């Protein structure tokens, strides 16, 4: 869909960015030392740190990605919410306090506190950089996707803008300004998501959304399934048009085409079974690239000028229980129980492109879906395997849920936040505040996603439906849209700042000071940190532009799997097994990182989405590595530790 930027949205957006930068400059004067720059001097109050956890963690993938996935497929997006939050329990109960006790600046600090080993610093520093960069790419891609409709700017401008603003935030005041930006963004995100949810519940459910531009797809009369070879327009109850013969590539597809008598416009209809003996046809939306390279939407040139057209927003409830057309305001329980008994019109994209006379057509079609089906796991392509009998598909699901569970507590940008508070009790309390804010937000994702699904705001042409939440806000007015979009943008800023601080900390403390043995003064460390932040920022901009077409949630999955496989075994075993040796830790990090990356690169998802090869030629049986590579990390750590035990005890100080 083509979005026209509104003056209000641009103004609110500008105010948010100004506020964010203002905060950074305010704190810049206070940050002089390395401890101030990298760990905010351990001075952040626990409540602020707790909300900043939410601001750090609730990335664009959480807000835009999860809401978009729920709006497209229902419950499946909520599986991510559940897994992401459960990961915090591992962080709170297992990792938080020992980490705070042992480390000072970086995740490698804590791992290395017992051994003082250069190899541990090097491997942990590399894994921090790898995970941070993997996590940065989807944030930057998300920023580009957001700026495009909001400000009408191309993708690369959006990515560069985010990069520039974030580099300013991080370079001016490091962890202090980053923390307060995250605090601001965390509070606003949770608050405005709550406002949006209350508005969704207050509006209730309706079969007739009033969103501007929305209209339901037209439907034909029911016809006998045996008579579809020779249908006429009047058989279908359509006037002023003729049915085109099913020739060429259209012959074996479930479509029927009609041509308007006056305008000559061709409409594509999708066959939908009504019973064993009857079918009907629903109007679809099409996107065609002609042999000359022009883009057509629904048969007309794509645009907003005269003689042009754009996709119309869709997604509505076809039937409410007892034939009602509006429910009026609903409570949370009433919202779900009504949806369970409703019929929802969901839209899908036909994966098969139709090539006819040099023109390539993609068809987006509506499907009547039971509400009870939408409220169950397994509707999306990612998770549909769990409804079948294929064991590998089920293992893939278990593997992802395991990576989400173990990944949070292994993400370097989350771990470093434990160093910004003064003691273990503050680390604990801030985690509780973090869990409360994040859990409350995830609860709201289901209402926002399902609200978007049924409010006539869905953009069929958006591959991942990432704009579902902002577009839902738009159905309540421009101001809310402007606020939610600006918050989403600040969301990217907050998370990217945290990642860049984590990465620059790893470069300065783990790689430069500890591994390369450079002796830096406090002031030089801050300066090196700023240079590192600038370099990582530029790298992130470059990768964000390069990976424009990559699916955001797919990349986040990579980051979680690599973090869980590389870091979790060492963190846990160091805390709970006295036999752990430095060689064991180093080996576990390297094997976990390389194995999970290799698995991902050889998986069906990567073959299909990245290399453009058939998923069936993949070299590993399922795509998510966690269930294999996390236990592998533990096994390598135990075996290597046992083999090197005595030697290590003798040379413990390396």
């Amino acid at each position, binding site marked *: 869909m083509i979005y026209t930027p509104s003056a209000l949205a641009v103004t609110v957006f500008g105010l948010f960015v100004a506020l964010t930068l203002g905060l950074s400059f305010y704190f810049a004067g206070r940050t002089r030392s390395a401890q101030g720059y990298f760990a905010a001097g351990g001075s952040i109050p626990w409540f602020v740190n707790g909300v900043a956890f939410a601001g750090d963690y609730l990335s664009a993938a959480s807000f835009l990605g999860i809401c978009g996935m729920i709006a497209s497929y229902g419950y499946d997006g909520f599986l991510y919410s559940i897994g992401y939050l*459960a990961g915090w329990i591992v962080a709170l109960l297992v990792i938080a*306090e*020992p980490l705070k006790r*042992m480390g000072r600046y970086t995740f490698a600090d804590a791992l290395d506190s017992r051994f*003082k080993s250069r190899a541990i610093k090097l491997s942990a520093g590399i894994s921090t950089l790898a995970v941070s960069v993997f996590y940065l790419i989807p944030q930057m891609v998300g920023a580009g996707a957001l700026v495009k409709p909001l400000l009408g700017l191309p993708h690369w401008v959006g990515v560069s803008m985010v990069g520039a603003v974030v580099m300013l935030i991080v370079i001016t005041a490091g962890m202090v300004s980053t923390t307060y930006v995250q605090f601001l963004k965390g509070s606003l995100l949770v608050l405005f998501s709550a406002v949006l949810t209350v508005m969704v519940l207050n509006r209730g459910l309706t079969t007739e959304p009033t969103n501007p531009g929305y209209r339901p797809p037209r439907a034909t009369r029911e016809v006998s399934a045996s008579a579809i070879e020779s249908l006429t327009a009047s058989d279908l109850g359509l006037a002023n048009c003729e049915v085109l013969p099913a020739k060429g590539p259209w012959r074996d597809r479930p479509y029927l085409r009609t041509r308007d008598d006056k305008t000559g416009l061709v409409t594509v209809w999708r066959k939908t079974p009504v019973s064993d003996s009857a079918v009907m046809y629903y109007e679809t939306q099409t996107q065609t690239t002609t042999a000359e390279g022009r883009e057509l939407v629904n048969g007309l040139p794509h645009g907003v000028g005269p003689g042009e057209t754009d996709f119309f927003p869709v997604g509505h409830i076809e039937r409410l229980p007892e034939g009602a057309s509006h429910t009026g305001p609903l409570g949370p329980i009433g919202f779900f129980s009504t949806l369970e008994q409703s019929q929802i019109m969901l839209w899908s994209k036909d994966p098969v492109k139709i090539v006819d006379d040099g023109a390539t057509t993609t068809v987006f079609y509506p499907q009547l879906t039971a509400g009870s089906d939408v*409220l169950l796991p397994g509707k999306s392509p990612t998770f549909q395997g769990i409804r079948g009998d294929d064991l590998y598909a*089920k293992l893939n699901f278990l593997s992802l849920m395991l990576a989400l569970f173990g990944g949070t507590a292994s993400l370097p940008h989350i771990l470093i936040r434990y160093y910004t508070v003064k003691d273990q009790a503050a680390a604990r309390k801030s985690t509780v505040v973090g869990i409360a804010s994040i859990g409350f937000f995830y609860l709201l994702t289901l209402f926002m996603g399902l609200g978007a699904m049924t409010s006539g705001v869905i953009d069929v042409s958006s591959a991942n439906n990432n704009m579902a939440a902002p577009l839902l806000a738009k159905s309540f007015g421009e101001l809310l849209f402007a606020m939610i979009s600006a918050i989403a943008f600040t969301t990217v800023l907050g998370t990217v700042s945290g990642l860049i601080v984590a990465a620059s900390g790893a470069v300065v403390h783990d790689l430069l000071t500890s591994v390369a043995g450079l002796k830096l003064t406090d002031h030089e460390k801050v300066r090196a940190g700023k240079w590192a932040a600038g370099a990582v920022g530029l790298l992130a901009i470059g990768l964000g532009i390069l990976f424009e077409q990559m699916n955001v949630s797919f990349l986040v999955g990579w980051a979680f799997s690599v973090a869980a496989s590389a870091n979790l075994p060492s963190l846990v075993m160091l805390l709970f097994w006295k036999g752990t040796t430095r060689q064991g830790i180093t080996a576990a990090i390297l094997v976990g990182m390389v194995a999970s990356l290799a698995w991902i690169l050889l998986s069906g998802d990567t073959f299909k989405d990245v290399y453009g090869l058939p998923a069936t030629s993949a070299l590993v049986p399922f795509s998510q590595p966690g269930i294999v590579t996390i236990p592998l990390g533990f096994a390598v750590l135990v075996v290597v530790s046992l083999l090197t035990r005595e030697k290590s005890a003798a040379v413990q100080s390396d």
Partner: protein
Amino acid sequence: MAHWDHGGNKTGDDASPATNLRNARIGMVLFVIYSAFYAGFVLIAAFSPATMAERPWAGINLAIWYGFALLGAAFLVAMVYSWVCRARDGS
């Protein structure tokens, strides 16, 4: 090994080893309970999808109730842990 020590931020070793050990034990017990609850959800979703479709209460299916219970339980576990540890800190 002084050159490894680049000064700056202090570590937060503010509690006695005995308190740390007690906190770790409580944490581990709560962790096992929550992990079992989470594993139950994941295993039912993977191996008995029909169970998730059942509507135990108020016309809402088990998938939604269980999902919300997991979010609520995370908060509850966090509160219990925080409360128990605080009582220990004080003692």
